[in-house]
């Protein structure tokens, strides 16, 4: 099954009000072309789930700057003054989650777990509204799975069915988000025929990927 399409056609599947996971860490590994296409489509009222707010007009910052985000679930926003301004103005609701808890909550959704027990945040503001579970004398926070309607991810290399390989620190949240959304769109730098990627080296198997969009390699 050939899953290759254009960025514009792919992002048309994102609806107003959708929950969208976006890969990348400070825009490295972010699907820049998909984000640009989404911003151009002006699909708004989005809830985004991402590692950080990246930079104004860069990475997920493209959606924030375009005013398309209603709610942001992320671990860090310090590199993007625009999200902080919009949060202060009441335009964006921001929820901060410790980065490692965010990774496990996304993975839990992808791997079909009902939740995971994590000690990060015990004794801090993160505890609020969460159940504490004791296991063998130790306390943990019950952290629930975090799912999305759509995941926009980025890989270095793909075949036409969506077997993905990543490069460097651009891997980050992309493989986990690929497992945790109803629709997974992968922007890839290099597109190769099926059979060219060694099955031992595939990081995200094609069964997780719905659409593949070829991006220009930056270097």
């Amino acid at each position, binding site marked *: 099954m050939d899953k290759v399409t254009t960025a514009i056609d792919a992002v048309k599947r994102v609806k107003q009000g959708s929950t969208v996971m976006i890969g990348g860490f400070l825009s490295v590994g972010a699907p820049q072309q998909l984000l640009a296409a989404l911003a151009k489509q002006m699909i708004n009222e989005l809830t985004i789930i991402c590692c950080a707010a990246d930079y104004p007009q860069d990475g997920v910052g493209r959606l924030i700057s375009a005013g398309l985000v209603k709610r942001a679930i992320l671990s860090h926003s310090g590199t993007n003054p625009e999200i902080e301004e919009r949060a202060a103005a009441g335009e964006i609701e921001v929820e901060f989650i410790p*980065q490692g808890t965010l990774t496990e909550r996304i993975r839990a959704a992808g791997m079909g777990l009902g939740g995971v027990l994590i000690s990060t945040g015990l004794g*801090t503001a993160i505890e609020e509204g969460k159940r504490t579970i004791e296991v063998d004398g130790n306390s943990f926070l019950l952290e629930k799975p975090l799912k999305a309607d759509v995941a926009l991810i980025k890989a270095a290399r793909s075949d036409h069915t969506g077997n993905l390989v990543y490069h460097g620190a651009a891997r980050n949240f992309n493989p986990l988000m690929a497992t945790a959304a109803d629709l997974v769109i992968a922007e890839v730098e290099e597109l190769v025929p099926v059979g060219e990627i060694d099955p031992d080296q595939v990081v995200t198997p094609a069964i997780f990927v719905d659409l593949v969009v070829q991006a220009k390699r930056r270097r």
Partner: protein
Amino acid sequence: MDKRARREYIARRVAQELSNGDVVNLGIGIPTLVANFIPAEITVIFHSENGFVGIGPPPREGEEDPDIINAGGQFVTILPGGAFFDSTLSFGIIRGGHLDIAVLGVLEVDAQGNLANWTVPGRSGPGMGGAMDLVTGAKRVIVATEHTTKSGRPKIVERCALPLTGERVVDLIVSDLGVLEVTPNGLLLKELRPGVTIDELQAKTAARFSIQPCLAAELGPAIG
């Protein structure tokens, strides 16, 4: 001592806490400088929470790989023997007891080892990033900080007033004035920077501390 010398003093002193083979995560600011002072006889593996072990020196200009940055967003390199991975494994390394030491800066640290470094009330951001995971998960947490804020306010306090990053997580505090250990009985002063008097350190510290016997002996019978 100027600011740069103070920061280098702290970084050099933290570096002495590392052992051969340690997996170490360095926070932004003074902690990052620690990498410059690793004793020649040991090998330390630096962990970058955005997804790799084996952080190398910054690339030469023009040789940057856009996909290889550290957690602060700066271009770095990866050393031979390093490995990239996704964010679940990266934080699994931290949470699962595979990270020997985390070195972080603070806004406040207190006598119980509580630490605040992620937010101040009245601001929406900037978020804790990986800081809560690092302080909770690392086998040993070392705070590397100037002893006071720019305006001279003590950073080492009896009880943190700012929102906590972690509860009872700090093991050691290395400042430009000395080294304090967090013990079940509170803070223990282990070292003074040469040239610093106990009076100066005491004046700039807003928490009670005891003095390690051998240091007390050095300082003379009037102290401790």
